[in-house]
């Protein structure tokens, strides 16, 4: 009885933290246990058991994002070795569907959070900038699903995108100006200016 009580207490706490409903939490908990093999934590290897994930070209990046301290709201950089259920929920809550009851601001916030997640995925060295190398890396992986696209064209695309971002964010560049990388603000700008987001 006591255990059950504390469990529901816990669920309630998680509900408050992540915004999931208790049903969803339960469902995710089941999935979590399935993934971890009834362990309290998940390690990277556990994700190898998801068969459908194998086809995903940016699989490693996504899995990595699950262990990223920035996404777990645990620190400015670094990777966790393993995550518990709460961490798992934290990551999942980035992709929680938007409630109809949410206000405009909240929706905006949730969008921003998602973009931040994406940004963190790009910015693999956690220095707050997506450098050209990082960008190239991502694009290469993104396009790796298509066997006909060579690495070099992926790189040139990354270069082009970087240039575009630079021209959007900085505008006219001075001759001796150097664009070091996309910051999160630039990231939002490069993505959103003019769009409905």
């Amino acid at each position, binding site marked *: 009885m006591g255990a059950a009580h504390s469990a529901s207490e816990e669920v309630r706490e998680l509900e408050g933290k992540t915004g999931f409903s208790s049903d*969803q939490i339960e469902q*995710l908990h089941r*999935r979590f246990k*399935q993934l971890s093999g009834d362990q309290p934590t998940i390690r990277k290897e556990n994700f190898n058991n*998801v068969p*459908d*994930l194998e*086809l*995903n070209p*940016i*699989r490693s990046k*996504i899995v990595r994002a699950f262990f990223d301290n920035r996404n777990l709201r645990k620190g400015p950089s670094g990777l966790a070795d393993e995550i518990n259920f709460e961490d798992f929920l934290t990551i*999942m809550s980035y*992709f929680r*569907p*938007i409630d*109809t009851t949410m206000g405009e601001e909240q929706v905006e916030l*949730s*969008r921003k959070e*998602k973009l931040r*997640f994406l940004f963190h*995925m*790009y910015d693999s060295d956690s220095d707050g900038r997506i450098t050209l190398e990082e960008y190239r890396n*991502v*694009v290469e992986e*993104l*396009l790796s*699903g*298509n066997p*006909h*696209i060579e690495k*070099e*064209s992926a*790189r*040139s*695309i990354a*270069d*082009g*995108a*970087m*240039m*575009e*971002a630079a*021209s*959007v964010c*900085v*505008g*006219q*560049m001075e*001759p*001796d*100006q*150097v*664009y070091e990388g996309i910051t999160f603000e630039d990231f939002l700008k*490069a*993505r959103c200016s*003019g*769009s*409905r*987001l």
Partner: protein
Amino acid sequence: MWGLRARGPGGGLLLALVLGGLLWTGGVEVEPGGAHGESQGFQVVTFEWAHVQDPYVIALWVLVASLAKIGFHLSHKVTSVVPESALLIVLGLVLGGIVWAADHIASFTLTPTVFFFYLLPPIVLDAGYFMPNRLFFGNLGTILLYAVVGTVWNAATTGLSLYGVFLSGLMGDLQIGLLDFLLFGSLIAAVDPVAVLAVFEEVHVNEVLFIIVFGESLLNDAVTVVLYNVFESFVSLGGDNVTGVDCVKGIVSFFVVSLGGTLVGVIFAFLLSLVTRFTKHVRIIEPGFVFVISYLSYLTSEMLSLSAILAITFCGICCQKYVKANISEQSATTVRYTMKMLASGAETIIFMFLGISAVNPFIWTWNTAFVLLTLVFISVYRAIGVVLQTWLLNRYRMVQLEPIDQVVLSYGGLRGAVAFALVVLLDGEKVKEKNLFVSTTIIVVFFTVIFQGLTIKPLVQWLKVKRSEHREPRLNEKLHGRAFDHILSAIEDISGQIGHNYLRDKWSHFDRKFLSRVLMRRSAQKSRDQILNVFHELNLKDAISYVAEGERRGSLAFIRSPSTDNMVNVDFTPRSSTVEASVSYLLRENVSAVCLDMQSLQQRRRSIRDTEDMVTHHTLQQYLYKPRQEYKHLYSRHELTPTEDEKQDREIFHRTMRKRLESFKSAKLGLNQKKAAKMYKRERAQKRRNSSIPNGKLPTEIPVQNFTIKEKDLELSDTEEPPNYDEMSGGIEFLAGVTKDTASDSPAGIDNPVFSPDEALDRSLLARVPPWLSPGETVVPSQRARTQIPLSPGTFRRLTPFRLSSKSVDSFLQADGPEERAPAAKPESTHM
């Protein structure tokens, strides 16, 4: 304004008079033939109207309709307020009146055969072929619900309510039973694709709303066909003989008709894609396959009494990806324009003939109660149906349909030519009140198209419905969208849900692994990546605006300048710095991977072999002043030789690509200054070595002067402005700086033949150009051209947005555009 407005129909009137005159002459078989007919010998000229009558009349009608369209668009104000479809109907009424006055027979009506076999297919094919697939399938559930449940609901409620009123005796005495009412309900229930397209294209509501209304109008065909067939057979069977088995059969036939039609469409799409894979050597008839095979899908499913509209819609939807990838760019353009032309022409004729057909006293039977109540019922029940279904849908949809959207959805339920054609098809023997049905349908169609079409625009504006917006695709956006798709599907995988993203992911995997391999050319498989496409597109745009800018500035010299880029690309001597190497690598890739242009590859290969020849040839081509029109008067039915323009475009494209990447490299990577300086020095040394002799050879004064001045400039900058070394290897960025500095000459002008650092080697070759071929003006780009074009990616990007398409194409592009944007716009659309 009124004067202008009158001019449109006036022109049509005039034509109609001419036309009427011709018909009349034809009818009586008059003079010229008769006069000469008396002499029995050989006739030099004969007048054989009867011989050409049918095609002649058809051609004239098409001409009239097209001219009327021109007339309408003479006044922008009219067309911006009144939808074209409404104008065409009115014009049709006027023309019908004239024909009637001349003949007293309604000789021209919209017959179901013509409509279903010739006018409808192009419109639906066009809709399918340009369907924004992602948007369509993303909203498929909603569309299907509206199309199936909504249509059945409309048909049932309208038919039953009319029957109820009939029983109350309000309509007076009619020879009509419950089944007749249901039959009428089923044909009047369906929202019409032609009318919806015609009106909504001009309204520009947001794409989700558009796709729902439009998709519904396309997919409800199966329902309409089945309901219509079922009730028609019930009516002919007689109400008492209908058994429960027949009803079950009816329901089964719905699934057979709809799924069968879809299947036929998919099969033909597969065929079509497969065929276009092998049309490499018959480019000129390539576009034909698209039309013929899709048309066959329509006819086939018509033959099997399946839903023809569904068949051709899905044929278009499924084949578009592969066909667009397989056929050449020119063919794709041809297909696009031909399709738009046919569809738009068919639509014009349909609406005009709807008007003409209405002028026929024999079909008019008026029953105020019946007509008015039909109008009321279809509007009211449509609204109720929409509200109910939306309430249901909103519990599952990520993007909610707001009350405003529901208003537009209900109000956008336009009825059109399909209903009219179906009602005309009715058998007057079995359906006693056919004429009443026909006239009511005409009224309904006219009411919805004219009245609702006229008012929907103000309504949309007044309600502030979210409009569609057209934006340039962004590379970053695309990339992020793609990344997000993957993340979402991964999240679904991890959380163990099977959602929308999961399905899409699996499908695209299947497509890439199997379908594309079978259906796409090998070369196309490579280049068909959305991201690559956007990349290519953006580059092309930049290139074009680059040229446009140049033209605006009054000189194209900078394009014509003898930079032999092709050869530069070949000449990749191993560089010491890694950055350099990667860029050169990248440049090579840009030609081979992104552009995939065999011709240029060949050219490049050839140039390795005999560079000198190439240079001579190149210079000849570039320097000899070309007369404005230089057509090759060679006729070949089987080949379209690529024109000079295309080659130039391509070349410009390559060049700008290079510049972009170079400038990017130098300006944004922050190329090591020392390295740059070293490089620069090396190049300059080379240049000196090479330049001393050829310069002497050039007889014209100007270039030489230019050259020396520049050389001095270089010396100056060498000592005074070390930071500028940074830019020596990059053209564009630096140039922007130069413009600011108003330096008279930039060492690294856009395409300065003499000084593009990379081309030092080629200089010697170029310099061997016979002196008489190199008048100063063209050899060295005029100073204006070099300094005044502020070309940096930041400035010329999309200064002049490039639009080729006509209006209707445009709106489709608009519909097409958001397709890929959807995920970016709503990344939250995961189903947890």
